[in-house]
């Protein structure tokens, strides 16, 4: 299928119609929103922050193996959990996390799961989340 070349027109008419078309956008609603005051539309399945159910984690290290860029490291955490004998819990570096969701998918007990939360700005110059912080709500972590 051959594409159609635009027809030859009288000079300046096309420019004028383009100007009118551009200027008519003045009366349309802006598509951008002022972020902190107005929340943008947040799709239902949007995922960012990795959370952890400490009681479900069995310390199998699958998430560490599957993480493509080594954001997850297993950390020793002494805690009462009969299923997790090795006392290993994931420790996530959000600075390198690419939200590939492989860890959520591979986790045999669905202990790791991703949440809506994406406002993870912190005053601390590190994105490392310890297992305990992963288990907490984002608001509590900030405190």
């Amino acid at each position, binding site marked *: 299928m*051959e*594409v159609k070349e*635009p027809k030859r027109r009288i*000079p300046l008419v096309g420019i004028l119609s383009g100007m009118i078309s551009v200027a008519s956008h003045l009366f349309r609603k802006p598509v951008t929103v002022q972020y902190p005051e107005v929340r943008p539309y947040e799709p*239902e399945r949007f995922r960012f922050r990795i959370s952890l159910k400490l009681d479900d984690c069995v310390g199998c290290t699958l998430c560490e193996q*599957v993480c493509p860029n080594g954001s997850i490291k297993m950390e020793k955490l002494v805690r009462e959990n009969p299923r997790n004998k090795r006392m290993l819990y994931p420790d996530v570096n959000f600075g390198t996390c690419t939200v590939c*969701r492989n860890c959520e998918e591979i986790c045999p007990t669905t202990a790791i799961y*991703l949440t809506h939360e994406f406002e993870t700005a912190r005053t601390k110059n590190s994105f490392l989340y310890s297992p305990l912080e992963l288990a907490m709500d984002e608001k509590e972590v900030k405190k």
Partner: protein
Amino acid sequence: MNDQWIELNIGPQHPSMHGVLRLKAKLDGEIIRELEPVIGYLHRNAEKLCEMGFYCDNLIYFDRMDYVGAMNMEVGYLEAAEKILGVPPPDRAKWIRVIIAELSRIAAHLVWAGAYGLDLGMLTPFFYCFAEREKILTIFTEACGSRQETNYMSIGGVYQDFNDKIIQEIKDFLETFPKRLEEIYNLYVKNDVFLSRTKGIGVLSKEVAIAYGVTGPMLRASGVEYDVRRAEPYLFYDKVNFEIPISHKGDNLARFLVRFEEMRQSLRIIKQGLEKLPEGPYFNPKAKKSMMIRLRGDGEYYARTESSKGEFGVYIVADGGVKPYRVRVRSPTFKNLSILPVLSKDVMLADMIAISGSIDLVFGEIDR
């Protein structure tokens, strides 16, 4: 060598270099006599990284190749990886991939359309294109949770199923988008100045295009009716009706028109895909949960797919392990960029910018 020539270094930090292209140009006044592209400023050696990860992990490197149309890259990788591993996706997943890949193609072309205007000094269409693209990205977010580097597809299917809301959203998009597309299209092609900047500039002949391995819309604009979706159908592209837009002019305008026509054809494919979307599982159970990292592959496979930039090939050599032995990527823009010194010989500096814009450069893919 002429002493009168100015040696001008354009890039890697330059407003119209689409990332980190560096051009060493020799100028005779305003006219470019010699041009040498220097690339590699975004080189991450994804091929080496792929050798070090499991098959399922490597997808994220492909997301980051053509970061404006990431889903096309995922399709390309999975075409090869799934054949190597022997876990074919079910029909529903294949149709979902077709729909998503075409949406992603539209998204990539929209970025190009907007950025091309910027290259020529046209500010406004960029924002209109991105406003439309944002709707597609919202659909992606709705489908899988991320906007751009989605990692939506996984080996043996897709990460999440489509639900009614996504399908409704795609339908809404199909309804509103064509009108906006025509608006953007008219903003460009009705403008005499735009036509004067594109018509007859950067003419690429059929023979040169084939010899230099140019593919995709650039090749089609030079008059070769070649599309991997037709030539070697993957997924379900043999079951949908679409036309391959070509032009025999080979200039910037032809490339522009071919890309816009491709967007319209993509809309047709999406429409058919939504009609034909079957019920059923959306992933191959052999590749889920802990099986993800235990899949072993053997042999070698070269999969070619049509990304928004051209023929995207993934060549995987496996040695029976859980990780690929060698991954080689044929990135379309890498080859397309090699035509730039040929095309921009003895053209004006402003035209060289227009030509390099019309190639549709994405540096994640060139440097990999």
